[in-house]
């Protein structure tokens, strides 16, 4: 449904826009109907930037974003309005998502004026209460309040409710669980599961690995703007290949295994993969089988090669160097 290919984003920074910040490099991923894809990465890895580009709130520098086969990187006003009927987002910072001088109701009113001008007041009220109920909010406690009178978690759930008012097909959820406590978190996760069951595709942005593990069908691991590994959740979590993914997973507590078991398994894997780079090994193997002309990585050189190879069916991994400007550990 949503397909991102070789997406790039360069921010112009510095006083005169002189220096460039390559926030997103050649990112490719896709989200299908009824599927949750987690975009996992540390702070500053470019997750929100990707989300905002998907939502057409930021211009991309290169690459393509297609939704149901249609390029959505350059939409006119009308087309964008139609796009937003199907694709909605929830932002990371709930406090900045509401206009501080207005009551929170106004956010819903804006949506209504824009997309439901003909829905009667009573019908709208009913719809709204249903959406609020779905995120376990009491309409009476919430409506008529100013944003600063509500908690971050309440605001965050309001934003989810807002997205639910439209009959969407794709939700870009940027850290939507971050401010919720354990019980509401479960409610929201269950809600996401239910929506997924109804065919909603979700791009779930998070820095929390265990959350990513819990909710998603597939994961995309992002490091400094580059996808280092992606694949089915089980495959990536059970057999992490890229050094960064392995570091990440090593720091996550497992409920089903003891620390020693995890340690042992990880050190075994590290020993097996030390000094290697599955990406370049695979490329070299391909190159051999295809003959010399097809020898890979030659055109651009290895330093800016940010592609992925399919290590196992559906499990992709990139060059084992960490930052994009480092050397490949295998020296290839």
């Amino acid at each position, binding site marked *: 449904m949503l397909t991102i290919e070789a997406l790039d984003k360069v921010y112009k920074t510095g006083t005169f826009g002189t220096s460039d910040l390559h926030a997103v490099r050649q990112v490719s991923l896709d989200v299908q109907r009824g599927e949750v894809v987690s975009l996992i990465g540390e702070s500053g890895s470019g997750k929100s930037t990707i989300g905002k580009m998907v939502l057409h709130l930021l211009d991309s520098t290169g690459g393509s974003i297609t939704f149901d086969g249609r390029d959505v990187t350059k939409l006119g006003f009308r087309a964008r309005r139609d796009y937003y009927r199907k694709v909605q987002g929830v932002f990371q910072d709930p406090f900045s998502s*509401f206009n501080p001088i207005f009551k929170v109701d106004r956010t819903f009113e804006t949506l209504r004026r824009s997309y439901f001008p003909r829905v009667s007041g009573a019908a709208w009220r009913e719809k709204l209460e249903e959406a609020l109920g779905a995120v376990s909010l009491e309409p009476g406690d919430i409506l008529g309040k100013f944003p600063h009178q509500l908690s971050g978690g309440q605001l965050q759930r309001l934003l989810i409710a807002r997205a639910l008012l439209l009959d969407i097909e794709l939700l870009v959820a940027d850290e939507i669980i971050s401010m919720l406590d354990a019980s509401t978190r479960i409610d929201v996760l269950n809600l996401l599961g239910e929506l997924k069951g109804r065919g909603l595709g979700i791009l779930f942005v998070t820095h929390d690995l265990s959350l990513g593990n819990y909710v998603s069908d597939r994961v995309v691991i992002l490091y400094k703007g580059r996808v280092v590994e992606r694949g089915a959740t089980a495959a990536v979590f059970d057999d992490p290949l890229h050094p960064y993914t392995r570091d990440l997973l090593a720091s996550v507590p497992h409920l089903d295994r003891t620390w020693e078991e995890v340690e042992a398994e990880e050190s075994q894997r590290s020993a097996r993969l030390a000094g290697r780079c599955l990406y370049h090994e695979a490329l070299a193997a391909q190159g051999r089988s295809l003959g010399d002309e097809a020898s890979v990585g030659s055109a651009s050189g290895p330093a800016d090669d940010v592609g992925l190879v399919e290590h196992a069916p559906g499990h992709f991994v990139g060059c084992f160097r960490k930052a994009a400007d480092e050397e490949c550990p295998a020296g290839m």
Partner: protein
Amino acid sequence: MSQGLGLDKLDQRGAATEATEPPGATPAPSGSRKPGGDVRETLYFALRNPKVVIGSVVVLAFLLLGLLGPLFLKFAPMDYAGPPMAPPSADFPFGTTTFGQDVFAQFVAGLRSTFLVGLLGGGVAAVIGMAIGFVAGYRGGLIDELLNMLTNVVLVIPGFVVLIIINAYLGVRSVPMQALYIGVFSWPWVARAVRAQTLSLRSRDFIDLARLSGVGVGTILRREVAPNMYSYLFMTFVLLFGGSILTAASLDFIGLGPTNAMSLGLMMNQAVQWSALHLGLWWWFIPPGLGITLIVGSLYIMNVGLDEVFNPKLREM
């Protein structure tokens, strides 16, 4: 009514930026929606804020005096009505000038043109400055750079000198014309300030959320950006209002003011010209001076109060 003074301008500005909105972006007004719930609440708090109330009462009083005063006057401002240099009395509440003109009649007439210059000059500057500031700050990129260039060009033009030349060369002698020229040269700092504020608001997520609601640029500027700046925009207008009055007075002083009208600035300056200070004719220069001070001061106090009204956080403290 005195509040309308500032808010009318804001509405005008809203209408000005509306033009940039793609067609069809304005949501169809639906009958069932209760209109202006927020407006009513703002009014509720405004009427309970002493600063707003006192400020508006003073400005309103002067405005009423200027509007209704002429109906009760026995003399025209320039008539040689009574004895020269007479102190305030029952016949002449503000006394008379060296030439025996009724100072009160001049004051009332002066109030009218002062309000006219302030409103019109300030209004023109506010509309131009805000439209340019909003569009430049929100759109960014090339549009921003072009508008910035325009702003800087007008900023470095010595406006007062140009005004002198225009007034002298074109021989403009009416108050509205004078106000218009003043307005056209005093908007650049408004554009800069509004642009800076818009720039900082633009990066907030609620702007993006409004975009996700399929709302156009004009509507976002009017419904999301501008309301965050209402008190600021009002203060801007206050400053423009005062600035226009003072510029007009300066022009009047060097003999380039309206020849067919009286203004508070002109009064003060005639008083100085005819040595009212040395002759101790305090009633000649104190009323216009006090009038200008009170009007601009009250607008300022109103502005502080409105900040509390518009900002719910301040309201609760």
